């Protein structure tokens, strides 16, 4: 009893410490902000009699007292652009991308842990609860090593900025001074919380203590998310500056500087992107462990782990295109030219690569699910229909990746006989592309539904009606999507744009209604046999690796696109890039560079995995039965 009370007190103290860590940056920052305000208002009062210079916010159009220096007008030389005998931009690109990869991973994994730990807490099946708990523990263990690497890479990134772009970094840090300090303190809070959360896992395993532990994961994620929002404000400012006047002078309102036109869509897009990416990395880890497993028990565990990670990753991948759509809409609203440079101008070919990648991600997911049906008795009945799904996916994919409006040279135009290709030109329009991607997503939903009911036979009285309804619903959905895609050819462009809404609504209806209906139908269903975890083909694990690599590559690609759209501006329209690298690279160079970044990340993270496997080997045999450290049997169902 005394021990339990002690543990309770310990847990509550730990939780309070976490809340304290969360509030620490705010508490520390408040006086400094107040001092800043005081000084500013004092200065303002002092100068009241004198001339107070006012400026107009470039975005909010409000007036403010000029409180900072104008953006420096840089010149190509050692002072503003010191360099090695190498392209500084490429070095910075590398440092930035590696930090981002690791940063995204360590921010995404705790969100997974929170979800899985919660599933473990609420599930009534004790054995399953234990397995979920062990899985969450495994996840956080992986992220712990990556966490220190993230911090090291962050340091390298700052040094790269300071040594290669001193003028730019000095301007940016001048504007974001308080934000950067809060960011650093938040990082301290994140580290503290993470360590308490990880090392407190054993002590807070049961009952009330488990709930406290779960609350810690919520705090950990709140800190992590705020941390990311702050970092996003810097890139948001570089793309769509606010809070400064036309000369780049700070006007005293830090919220305006943070809350720029693109901040919110960037935040949402990055959260979803990080989650999909994190799912991919953990799935690849599970695939690696699966392929390296020597026993059936290990194979079963890592097969299950790979499935959960993939499912979570894909769950966040599905809304990602819609978040991307919102971001693009905001980009167009902020600067139409910027949107056109992205989608129909200089960077348009990169979006064709992006479309290819999205297709690859969905194809890999479907392939994995079809392979996964092989480990269930009863799923054979769906195998013969898979060829039709392949047909639908292939058609949707081909339409989706067909280019349409491209910037072409006169020679290319002449060769093609006009702006559009005589045959293919009809297929690449947005209306058809929307149809293509929606067919792909709907087919993925269908694959998931088949997978979920693979080894089950519904026992509800209305099963037959439910199946017919489901079939008709999917049939109507495909018809509606394809009909709208074709109908789009016969109406003006501005009306056509609106068709994407019913198309997306159809896809989302399939996702939500069909999943819900399937769950109802499969409640208490007769099992044809258990899922034989571990009895999945090795090919399926390569699909997971493909998924993970493609996520990583796409992240690199989209980051490059987002950064390149500023063209020759460090801060769009405020601070011009006068370095010798103020031009945009060719698609080929960018692709090679992204590959180099992706491969470096994977080589290092595989090394981290390998390090992790070394420590796992040291776990004494006796502890195998307990948690953590043991390899439990996975769940009997999904």
């Amino acid at each position: 009893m005394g021990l339990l009370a002690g543990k309770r007190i310990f847990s509550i103290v730990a939780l309070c410490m976490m809340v304290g860590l969360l509030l620490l940056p705010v508490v520390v920052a408040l006086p400094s902000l107040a001092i800043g305000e005081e000084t500013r208002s004092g200065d303002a009062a002092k100068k009241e009699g004198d001339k107070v210079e006012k400026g107009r916010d470039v975005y909010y159009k409000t007036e403010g007292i000029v409180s900072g220096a104008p953006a420096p007008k840089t010149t190509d030389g050692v002072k503003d652009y010191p360099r090695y005998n190498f392209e500084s931009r490429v070095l910075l690109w590398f440092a930035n991308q590696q930090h981002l990869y690791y940063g995204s991973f360590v921010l995404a994994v705790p969100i997974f842990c929170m979800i899985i730990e919660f599933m473990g807490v609420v599930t009534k099946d004790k054995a399953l609860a234990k397995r979920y708990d062990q899985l969450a523990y495994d996840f956080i263990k992986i992220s712990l090593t990556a966490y220190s690497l993230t911090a090291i890479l962050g340091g390298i990134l700052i040094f790269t900025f300071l040594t290669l772009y001193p003028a730019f970094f000095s301007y940016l840090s001048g504007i974001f001074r308080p934000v950067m300090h809060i960011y650093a303190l938040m990082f301290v809070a994140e580290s503290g919380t993470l360590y308490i959360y990880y090392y407190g896992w054993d002590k807070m395993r049961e009952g009330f203590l488990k709930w406290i532990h779960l609350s810690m994961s919520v705090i950990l994620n709140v800190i992590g998310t705020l941390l990311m929002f702050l970092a996003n404000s810097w890139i948001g400012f570089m793309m769509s500056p606010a809070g400064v006047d036309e000369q780049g002078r700070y006007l005293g309102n830090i919220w305006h500087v943070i809350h720029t036109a693109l901040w919110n869509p960037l935040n949402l897009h990055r959260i979803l992107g990080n989650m999909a990416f994190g799912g991919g990395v953990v799935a690849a880890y599970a695939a690696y462990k699966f392929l390296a497993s020597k026993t059936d028990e290990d194979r079963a565990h890592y097969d299950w782990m790979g499935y959960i990670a993939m499912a979570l990753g894909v769950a966040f991948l599905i809304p990602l295109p819609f978040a991307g759509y919102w971001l693009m809409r905001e980009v167009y609203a902020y600067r139409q030219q910027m949107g056109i440079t992205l989608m129909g101008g200089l960077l348009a070919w990169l979006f064709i690569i992006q479309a290819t990648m999205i297709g690859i991600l969905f194809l890999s997911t479907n392939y994995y699910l079809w392979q996964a049906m092989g480990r269930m008795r009863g799923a054979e009945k769906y195998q013969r229909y898979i060829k039709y799904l392949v047909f639908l996916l292939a058609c949707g994919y081909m339409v989706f990746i067909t280019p349409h409006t491209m910037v072409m040279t006169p020679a290319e135009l002449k060769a093609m006989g006009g702006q559009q290709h005589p045959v293919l030109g009809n297929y690449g329009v947005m209306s058809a592309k929307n149809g293509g991607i929606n067919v792909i997503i709907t087919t993925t939903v269908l694959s998931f539904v088949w997978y979920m009911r693979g080894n089950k036979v519904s026992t509800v009285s209305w099963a037959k009606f439910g199946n017919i309804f489901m079939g008709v619903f999917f049939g109507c959905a495909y018809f509606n999507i394809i009909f709208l895609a074709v109908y789009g050819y016969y109406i003006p462009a501005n009306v056509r744009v609106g068709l994407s809404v019913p198309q997306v609504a159809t896809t989302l209806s399939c996702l939500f209604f069909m999943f819900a209906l399937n769950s109802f139908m499969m409640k208490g269903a007769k099992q044809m046999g258990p899922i034989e975890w571990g009895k999945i083909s090795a090919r399926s694990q390569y699909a997971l690796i493909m998924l993970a690599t493609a996520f990583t590559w796409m992240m690199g690609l989209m980051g490059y696109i987002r950064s390149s759209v500023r063209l020759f501006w460090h801060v769009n329209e405020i601070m011009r890039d006068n370095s010798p690298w103020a031009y945009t690279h060719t698609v080929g160079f960018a692709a090679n560079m992204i590959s180099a970044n992706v491969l470096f990340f994977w080589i290092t993270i595989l090394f981290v995995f390998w390090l992790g496997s070394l420590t796992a080997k040291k776990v004494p045999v006796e502890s195998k039965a307990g948690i953590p450290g043991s390899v439990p049997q996975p769940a009997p169902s999904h």
Partner: protein
Amino acid sequence: MGNLIAEALSMGWMALAILAGLLVYFQVSISDPAAKKRAVFKTFIGIVSCFLLFMAIANYKTNFYGESRLLPVSLVMITVTTFIMALYFTNLSALLKIGGMMFFVAAFLSGYGNWLPQVEGGFPPVEEKVTWETMTTQQLADKGEEIIFGGVGKNKEQGAIGKGQCPLCHAFHAGMLGERAPNLLGLPTRKERLEDPKYSKGDPSKRMYSVKEAFPGSGTAETVQEYIAESHACPSCYVVEGYGVKGTNDKESPMPSIHKPPISLSLAELAAVDTWMYAREGVEPPSFDDIVKSYEKFVPEADRPKQADDKPAGATSLLADGSEPVDQIFAKAQCVSCHTIPGIPGATGTIGPKLEEGTTAPQRIKDPAYKGTAKSTTEYIMESIVDPSAYVVKPFPDKTMPAIFGQKLSAGALKKIVDYLSQVKTGAPPPKVS
């Protein structure tokens, strides 16, 4: 291929030597013939794989900045290497296979990126000193067409675009639909806009738009030319129906103010643009001064871009900034006066050697008289430009070529020169000028 092998050996000789040492060690130290055979064979596979790996890295390193579309081949080679190794090193088999798979995916995507048409964004436009006041109407109109479409006579070319970026959104010819912005045909005679009650001529306070006036006290346009000037300076002062920002009910225009960043056309440049708009429709344009005055009404003194001041200091001293095609870079840097360069018009100089570096550079690097540090063709060319005395081709005298080009050409211009010259080979047709 020979160069690649040499480069791979120079990079990986230590690793290869260690593996060769291991091979010998296993040969002499293992007594069991079966175990010896296995160990020796594995080490041999290791040597082959290691060599392939360094070949791949050398290919990447040598061609990193080149236009070579074969770079992803490196990644495919690494894929093959890892899968071969996975067959023999079963302990690391999973790791190697996964690594190989990742290299394969990266190779595919990299190859795809290199297969697509290669578009490179040029450098920011460098402003030239132009004497606008003395130009004839035709010269002004030509300049205006250049600003809009990027060159004289390009107005009917699809996709032609100049510094002003107007064709990104506007159409200019009859029958062409501007989905993002109105068609500008007939603009010089579009008097009806001034009469539109929504325009509220003479009383900007009654306007329904997000911006009432270009700046406080600027008033509204009285003539068509002033209307054109106002639309450029303050696009949201009047928005043509159906072309506003979505969700604003046509109260705000998506068009940026053309005299402000990112486009930042000077008033003189805007006058040239307007002159072309009149001249192409056969309408007599107002004088240069009148057009500039119409803009001065809507652009306050402080907002007017100053041409000379805005010019980046770094660019002023450069002979070429890299935005030009490579033949122009050769001409601007005066390379053509002294060198014969196959494929470059007018490059028939004989003061320096003929530049067929694709063939000659590898030979010169191997020459015992060569004292430079270059290991590849591209490095050699770069070195000859930046430090011409590193190797002097016989019988040409030393110190003839100035050592200033490293400072006088931008990184982009140097890259273009190196890319081009590395492809020029004796007896082969010259590469395409880009």
